[in-house]
């Protein structure tokens, strides 16, 4: 067991950090790592595009893509190393994560030659920004329940319906859209995937305000959107197979991405030394000490779990069973820490004197954490996946499996 790079990994790291040193500014201690993939405004989108095109020129975009598509043929562990190194610099958010991490690999497998030459280079250089038009108001965890319809009319498809929770749709140029093309067959069998332009007037994007007050995702209304048959990705009625490729790549992108861990548990020590409980510094209170120590133990466990995932990648294996627990445990830990920070910071928990104070800080943590427990597979879905795929327990009974979608 050791934490050091292999000689090849060290060489890659040195090369990456040399280029980053010459092309970006190191973060100073006060700046937080840029661990999100959402832009806050048009200016950030523009800066992200500029950074992406410079990376593409120098061969640092689409690292794990094959050279034939403009990538670097890098290994997954090299992607992790790049992410670690890039994280040390003040760089704009990675709004290209969906395009390069999810859509690109799906197009490589299921796309026509024309689709590959049209979309892959522009995704790499940052010209196009992609969003994922999968979830719907009535189809989240049960994605195959989507109702957005695509009807064939001659050489065209006419698409109508509603998508939701679409991250970045408001600044994306393109979307990968899953639609139902045949309601007369069971739900997994009647779907088809499309590549669409978000600028089409038949698509309306409305930001959704989250419980934290900020907006990073949208609802997307599609009203008689007409696309040529050449916009179809993969075979007719093979949309589920195509979607599984996208979702598999989503899991991979998450497992090699920088963990969006939120606050460090040690920050609670700092808070507890500044506030009082029962007339004494809170950090002298037994219960406070116990809670903080347990938070630290859980957070360390998640950190070292990510090292185990990296070890699997470094050995050329797929991320193993250990990777599945990270997402399940992170959201709940953040939520509990947020709640505890709020309680600690003020007797009237949640009421903050001014923005930016301790209550506001932990309240924001508390109000953003639920997203970790839902996005990318809710805690409940994660537990079912662990139970069935890892522990080999009998699958859920699915009463809708062999019934035509129109009969449900």
């Amino acid at each position: 067991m050791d934490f050091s790079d292999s000689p090849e990994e060290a060489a890659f790291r040195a090369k990456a950090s040399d280029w980053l040193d010459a092309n970006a500014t190191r973060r100073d201690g006060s700046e937080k790592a840029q661990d999100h993939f959402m832009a806050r405004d048009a200016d950030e989108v523009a800066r992200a595009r500029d950074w992406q095109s410079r990376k593409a020129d120098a061969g640092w975009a689409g690292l794990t893509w094959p050279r034939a598509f403009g990538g670097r043929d890098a290994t997954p562990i090299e992607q992790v190393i790049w992410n670690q190194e890039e994280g040390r610099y003040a760089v704009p958010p990675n709004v290209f994560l969906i395009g390069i991490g999810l859509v690109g690999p799906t197009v490589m497998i299921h796309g026509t030659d024309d689709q590959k030459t049209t979309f892959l280079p522009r995704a790499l250089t940052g010209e196009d920004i992609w969003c994922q038009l999968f979830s719907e108001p009535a189809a989240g965890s049960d994605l195959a329940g989507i109702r957005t319809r695509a009807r064939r009319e001659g050489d065209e498809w006419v698409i109508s319906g509603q998508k939701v929770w679409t991250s970045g749709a408001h600044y994306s140029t393109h979307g990968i859209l899953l639609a139902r093309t045949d309601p007369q067959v069971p739900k997994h069998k009647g779907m088809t995937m499309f590549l669409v332009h978000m600028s089409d007037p038949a698509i309306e994007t409305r930001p959704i305000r989250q419980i934290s007050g900020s907006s990073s995702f949208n609802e997307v209304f599609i009203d008689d959107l007409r696309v040529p048959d050449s916009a179809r990705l993969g075979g007719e009625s093979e949309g589920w197979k195509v979607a599984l490729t996208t979702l598999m790549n989503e899991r991979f992108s998450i497992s090699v991405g920088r963990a969006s861990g939120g606050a460090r548990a040690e920050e609670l020590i700092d808070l507890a030394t500044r506030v009082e409980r029962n007339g004494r510094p809170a950090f002298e209170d037994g219960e406070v000490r116990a809670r903080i120590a347990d938070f630290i133990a859980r957070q360390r466990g998640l950190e070292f779990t990510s090292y185990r995932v990296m070890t699997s990648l470094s050995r050329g294996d797929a991320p193993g069973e250990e990777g599945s627990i990270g997402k399940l445990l992170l959201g709940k830990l953040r939520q509990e820490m947020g709640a505890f920070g709020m309680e600690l910071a003020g007797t009237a928990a949640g009421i903050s004197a001014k923005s930016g104070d301790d209550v506001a800080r932990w309240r924001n943590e508390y109000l953003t954490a639920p997203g970790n427990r839902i996005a990318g597979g809710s805690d409940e879905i994660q537990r079912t996946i662990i139970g069935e795929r890892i522990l080999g327990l009998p699958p859920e009974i699915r009463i809708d499996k062999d019934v035509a979608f129109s009969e449900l």
Partner: protein
Amino acid sequence: MNFGFSDEQDAIRDTLARMLSDHATLAVVHDCLETAEGFDSATWAALAGGGWLGLAIAEDYGGSAMGAVELAIVAEEIGRSLAAVPFAPVLGLATPAIQDLGTQSQKEKLLPGIAEGRLIVATALAEDGGSAPERVSAKVVQDRLSGRKSPVLFAADASFALVAALDEGGTVRLYLADLSDPSVSINPHDAIDRTRPAAEIVFHGAPVELLPGSDPAAIRTLLDGAAVLAAFEQIGLAERALSLTRDYACERQAFGRQIGSFQAVKHRLADMFAKIELARSNAFFGAWALASGDNRLAEAAAVARLSALDAVQFTTEESVQLHGGIGFTWAADPHLFLRRGWQLKAELGPADLWRERLLCDLANGPAAAN
């Protein structure tokens, strides 16, 4: 980045797991629970015969001088087997204490006997159930020890004990005591897990030998290392409890279905898995810190201990629960795991102690805590 086991280490695990599954079956553990003796001497002899007891002992003293990572693997497999043997006291505490802190003559006298399985050296650190060496009141005056130590595991099977006691200047040190001395009396306890028999040892001016290297910092490091190994033993135990429960959930039918197909059961098993894997990640960090002598050992040991305690308690309690009525019976297996889990908790002290250790270490920095 290599935060896992090598192929050679995996092979060591397979060999040991096969040996243990031949000797230390759960039927044997049930038998040990019934007998007054508790100790599974046949499995201990088999471990000695396979060279497992000398794994971390230097070659000069009859061992094979392997590292902490290999020892962690042994701990995990012993935990999984539930073998009624004194792994933690002898290999986790007494052996490193003698090897790292003792004199050459102490090593010559005891280490070969430990490796061969002839000698059991019990560890008598705790008093009144707590095991923080700072709270020790046993005292050594002119090489004579007086005081009460409790709980001491496998005291009746041991020839010597490693004892924490105050020296004449009031500093906690470690001593070796010959338990056959007439000034020593042993009073058996009624422990929750009789397969790890516990006792009180009373020393009335017993002759002892100081381990010269045992200053307070060295004692803490020793306890940290033992906590890391114990975490692996706990993980092995928890994983076996999960696997047993998972098998039962696939076999037991209710309402026309296997109960493992119900989310209430399936999700509980997934939670067990998640807690065990989190504990394993922290234990890996502990094994790495122990093997590399890193100055974050205290932090690593504390987080490994805390998450292992949590995983064991949750897994063993829910194992009883998910077995339904049968899980509440003496004849079924789940209570063996529940009992052993509590015993492992008692051996190095409860979570509170390790929470404080963690917070003190973080407050003072790794160097100061050592």
